[in-house]
Structures are given as structure tokens and as C-alpha cells.
């Protein structure tokens, strides 16, 4: 067992941890040691092959198929230098004002979050994709939405030199996507922050972390760890937990630290999503170009968001309901397929929470509320209208029975797509926007941390990831995570100065 002392230990290197690392880097020049502990590897550029079978196990926990306790939804989250910013599509939206105001966290001011979000938009190269680089899968969404009476908006994306591989969710093979692995972490390291990869925090104690560093497995992707494999006891004046929603809360729950707030683990939300697919008569450009250029935001009015998307063959196959000849026929239309991702804006409810099993591994209890099911059904109907308005021959709708709707059935969308056909266990529902578990709030009775991420009653311990969200964000979360992490880092700097 090796002993290490530092001023700040940051657990996790994604949108939260990477942001905190860069913001605290000036402490190094002042003689303070800042460590980032990342459980995944530091991937090399040549590791990103774009092959699903290679990349999913390397990047995602449980290959992207982490199941909720009742097995009805899969949760996707990545592990590696950069966390889930390695695998997101780079969609960069500022949190809606109404959501932040509904959160009603004392100390969180919308204008402040907006200012910080804009700072990171600038830093991470956020821009709109030029029209010439928008593929037909996205163009059809925009034209279909307009024709069907929906307002489609273009996603700002954090890209530099996108070649349109369409492989964002398997890690950009061209280093174009500007996640923390490309921007904040390299800068922090240049300024002296130490990032240790393959470093799994197994125990959290009072200002202490027990860490196991593992060697690169034979044939595995990524670099060797920066520290020699073995066990380390790290003593830190400040600990910042930013290991993502299924890293931070389970670590706290398993810590046995005295006085942890009762709300720890509560308030899990995730924007449950599924992929809808439609078939056109002709081939379209779908597997080339950035996959996610447009969205329709109906969160406030109807509880859902529609986003363009294009997935790989296995993910597509998994998301089509059923099996057998009909399923195969649809898959064989791959070059003619258009896709829309529907996301439901779920709300924090008592049943939906994070726990740990006897070995300290995360267990997510999640029940689809009637509100979520209705949102998904409304979103599916809206998507079907957009598909047909864009000229699709047929639409695959998981909450229809049978799931294939022909164009002639367009006038009957409301009857065909109905909540009574939404049957868990047959529909592939997944989520990648994991939120909550360490909600910010006023006090230990109603929340886990304050608005600077300090865990109530434990001033040396902070949280800086989406665990902080007291409720669903209702839009893609990474920019808000960065804005909140920036506040957390500012708090650490202020404490250090004192």
C-alpha cells in the first residue's frame, strides 16, 4: 500500500471532473498537488476504430447495457479519460431558464449558469454545423418537422474539424469532438495536474480514498496507467466526486461516512429514450455526417424532446421491437432508414433512486410513471408525423401493435400509437442522461449538497457532476454539468484562499 498526499483529489474526469481539474490547475503553480483519479483508461487516438464490437466494451460500463433493477431499461455511461464526453455527440445546449427556476436551489442563479455555460461553449469550440455537412437523415427531420407543424432547431455542437464519420457514440476517430479529453484535461495536465487512469476508488473515508490502480489487460485498449499497478491510500484536504451519477452516489452510499444526508440516492432521473425508425423509398445519407444536427423541444408543453440520431446496426436492431422475418426485412433497408430519438422528460419521484448492492455496486430502481409513458407516446406520435411528412413509406413505432405503420395509416396515428401498447420488457428503452442522487438544495433534510456541491455536514467533500441535479434538466446535460462544476471549483479556490 502506497500513501499519497494531495490538496485536492478529483474522482472522475468527465464533464464535471475535467472541468474542475482545469479550473483548479492554477493551484499547482501555488505548490498544491491536484490529482484526478479516473477508473477507465486513457484511450489513444488509434483506439477509436468505430467498430461496435470493439468499442462498446472498451468505452461503456456493461457494454452500454447496464440494466435497471427490474431489467426494463439500459443505462449508458462511459469510462475513460474524459468520461462520457468521449462518447456524447457534443450537443451543447444551455439549461432552460424555467427548469433552473423550478429547481429553486438557493444560490443557483440562472444568469450565472448561463454565463458559465457560454464560457465553456467558447472554450470547447461550440458552433453550428455548416448546411453542406448536414446529412439527409437530418435534413428530412427538419423538413418533416416544418411540414408537420413542429419547430426544429439546429443543435450547437462542440466540434473542430468534424469529418462526418457519424461515429460520435463510439468515440470520435478524428479527434474532432471537443470533450474534456481534448480540451480541459490536456490543459490541466500541462499546468501540472496529475491524471491517473485505471484508478478505481474502492473506498471513501474522512479525507481519504482507497484506490486500486490496474495494469492494462492483455490486448486491451488504451495506455498503461500513469502509476504503478497496486493499492494506494490517498489523503486529500478536499475531495471532489465527479465519477458520474452511477459513480458518485454509490461511492458515497458505500462509504459509511457518518452524517450523510438522508436524501442520498434519491431523485434519479434520466430522460428515458427510444429510437424510432422509418423507411424511405430511396437511399439517404444516414451513416455519414454528424448524426445529431436538429431537435424539437416540446419539453415544457408535452414533456418530450425529439432529436435526430443515427445508430449502428446492432443498436438499431436492438431498438426495433420483436424479431424474426419482419425485423430482418427492416434491417435490410438500412441505407433507406431515417431515425429519431425520443426522450421523455421524467420527474424526480420517490420510487426512482440509486442504491448499492452488498458489494457496493450501483443498483438503479426505476419505474416508468404514467407521465413518462404518456410523454413517450406523444413523442412517438409526433415523430411518426414528422417521418410521414418527410416522405417515409413506413414507420416503426414500439408503442403500436403491430409496430409497423404504413404511410396510408398516417391519419390514424393517434389510434395506432397508444399507451396500452407500451409494454416494458418488449420495448428497448435506454438512457444516457443520468441525473440526480446528490441533489443540491437548502439543507440536509431536503438535499445532499449545497449550491457549490459541498455535501451537507462534510465541508471537505464536494460533488461536481450530474448527480447534483435536483430534477431532470429536460435537455442534453453536459454544458450544465460544466457550469455547475465551474461553481464547485470556484468554491474550492475560495476555500483554499481562506
Amino acid at each position, binding site marked *: 500500500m502506497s500513501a499519497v498526499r494531495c490538496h485536492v483529489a478529483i474522482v472522475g474526469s468527465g464533464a464535471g471532473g475535467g472541468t474542475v481539474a482545469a479550473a483548479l490547475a492554477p493551484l499547482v503553480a501555488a505548490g498544491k498537488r491536484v490529482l484526478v483519479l479516473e477508473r477507465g483508461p486513457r484511450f489513444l487516438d488509434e483506439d477509436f476504430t468505430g467498430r461496435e464490437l470493439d468499442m462498446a466494451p472498451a468505452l461503456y460500463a456493461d*457494454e452500454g447495457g447496464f440494466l435497471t433493477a427490474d431489467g426494463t431499461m439500459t443505462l449508458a455511461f462511459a469510462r475513460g479519460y474524459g468520461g462520457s464526453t468521449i462518447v456524447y455527440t457534443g450537443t451543447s445546449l444551455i439549461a432552460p431558464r424555467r427548469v433552473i427556476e423550478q429547481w429553486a436551489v438557493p444560490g443557483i442563479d440562472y444568469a450565472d449558469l448561463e454565463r458559465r455555460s457560454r464560457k465553456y461553449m467558447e472554450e470547447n469550440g461550440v458552433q453550428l454545423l455548416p448546411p453542406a455537412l448536414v446529412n439527409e437523415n437530418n435534413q428530412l427531420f427538419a423538413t418533416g418537422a416544418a411540414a408537420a407543424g413542429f419547430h426544429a432547431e439546429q443543435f450547437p455542437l462542440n466540434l473542430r474539424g*468534424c469529418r462526418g464519420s457519424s461515429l460520435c457514440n463510439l468515440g470520435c476517430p478524428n479527434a474532432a469532438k471537443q470533450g474534456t479529453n481534448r480540451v480541459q484535461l490536456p490543459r490541466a495536465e500541462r499546468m501540472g495536474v496529475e491524471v491517473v487512469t485505471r484508478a478505481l476508488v474502492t473506498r471513501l473515508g474522512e479525507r481519504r480514498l482507497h484506490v486500486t490502480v490496474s495494469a492494462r489487460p492483455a490486448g486491451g485498449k488504451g495506455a498503461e496507467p500513469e502509476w504503478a499497478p497496486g493499492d494506494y491510500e490517498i489523503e486529500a484536504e478536499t475531495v471532489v466526486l465527479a465519477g458520474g451519477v452511477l459513480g458518485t452516489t454509490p461511492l458515497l452510499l458505500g462509504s459509511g461516512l457518518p452524517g450523510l444526508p438522508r436524501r442520498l440516492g434519491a431523485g434519479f432521473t434520466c430522460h428515458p429514450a427510444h429510437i424510432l425508425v422509418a423507411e424511405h423509398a430511396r437511399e439517404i445519407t444516414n451513416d455519414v*455526417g454528424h448524426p445529431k444536427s436538429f431537435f424539437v423541444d416540446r419539453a415544457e408543453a408535452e414533456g418530450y424532446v425529439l432529436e435526430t440520431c443515427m445508430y449502428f*446496426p446492432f443498436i*438499431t436492431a436492438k431498438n426495433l421491437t420483436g424479431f424474426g422475418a419482419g425485423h430482418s426485412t427492416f434491417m435490410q433497408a438500412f441505407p433507406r432508414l431515417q431515425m429519431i430519438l425520443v426522450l421523455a422528460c421524467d420527474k424526480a419521484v420517490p420510487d426512482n433512486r440509486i442504491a448499492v448492492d452488498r458489494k457496493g455496486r450501483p443498483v438503479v430502481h426505476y419505474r416508468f410513471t404514467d407521465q413518462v409513458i404518456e410523454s413517450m407516446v406523444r413523442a412517438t406520435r409526433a415523430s411518426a408525423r414528422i417521418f410521414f411528412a418527410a416522405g417515409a413509406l413506413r414507420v416503426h413505432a414500439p408503442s403500436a401493435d403491430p409496430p409497423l405503420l404504413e404511410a396510408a395509416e398516417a391519419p390514424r396515428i393517434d389510434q395506432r400509437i397508444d399507451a396500452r401498447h407500451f409494454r416494458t420488457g418488449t420495448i428497448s428503452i435506454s438512457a444516457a442522461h443520468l441525473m440526480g442522487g446528490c441533489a443540491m438544495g437548502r439543507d440536509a433534510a431536503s438535499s445532499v449538497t449545497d449550491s457549490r456541491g459541498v455535501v451537507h455536514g462534510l465541508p471537505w467533500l464536494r460533488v461536481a457532476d450530474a448527480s447534483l441535479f435536483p430534477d431532470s434538466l429536460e435537455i442534453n446535460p453536459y454544458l450544465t454539468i460544466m457550469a455547475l462544476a465551474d461553481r464547485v471549483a470556484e468554491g474550492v479556490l475560495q476555500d483554499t484562499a481562506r
Partner: protein
Amino acid sequence: MASLPTGSPRPAFRALAQCFIPETARATDSQWRALESAVATALAARPARLRRQVRLFVRLIGFTARARYGTGFAGLGAARGTALLEGLAASRVLLFRRGVWGLRTLVMLGWYTDPAVIAALGYRASAAGWEARR
């Protein structure tokens, strides 16, 4: 050593796969090996509890086939095998629905990640992106 959910009798696994994806009936030996290897590797990486559940569910399918048709699943043929699986997938019991969903997802993982299969579908994504299409 990673193993298939059916254990050693591969015919049962291949019969299941052919019900889920009829084209696998035309798979070459090397495609079967790749599919089976992908499934076994994926299972090996999952929690032990989940692996046990998958194995138990496969046994349940075999038991149901014997009870209903007097033969193991591998002896049912595509039509009866598919009907049996569709029945379980439409069950009121969540565990049965989930079981079929999980098994078919595993088979799809093995098949739709095969480079030859996805090329035949017309999937052409590459790092070169737009340059490769112009």
C-alpha cells in the same frame, strides 16, 4: 472460459438464433463462431447474477418446448420455435418478456456486429466520413 447461455449443446443456441434472425440459417461456420464468441464474451463481462438468469431462462424455454411439443427447442423447427418465443415475448409475466428481449438482444449483438453482415446491409460508416463518399 466464456460460454454460451445454452452451455455446450450448440444446436439449441443456433436454433434460438435462427428464430430471432432467420438469415443466420445461412451463416457460414466462421460466422457462427464469431457470433457465438461475441455472445459468450458479452455474457462473460456481465454480472454473475445476470448470467444465471439467462441460463435459467434458456432452460425454461427448453422445458416449455418439451412440455408443449415433446421435443427440445432444437428439434422444434423455425415455425414452432418462433411461435413459442413469440408467446413468451407476449406473456403477462415481465420476466418472460425480459428473457426473450435479452436473448434476442444477445443474438443481435453477435450478428449485427459481423463486418460481412453489416456490409451486406449497406452500412458504410468510416472514419473518413464525407471524403469517403465523394
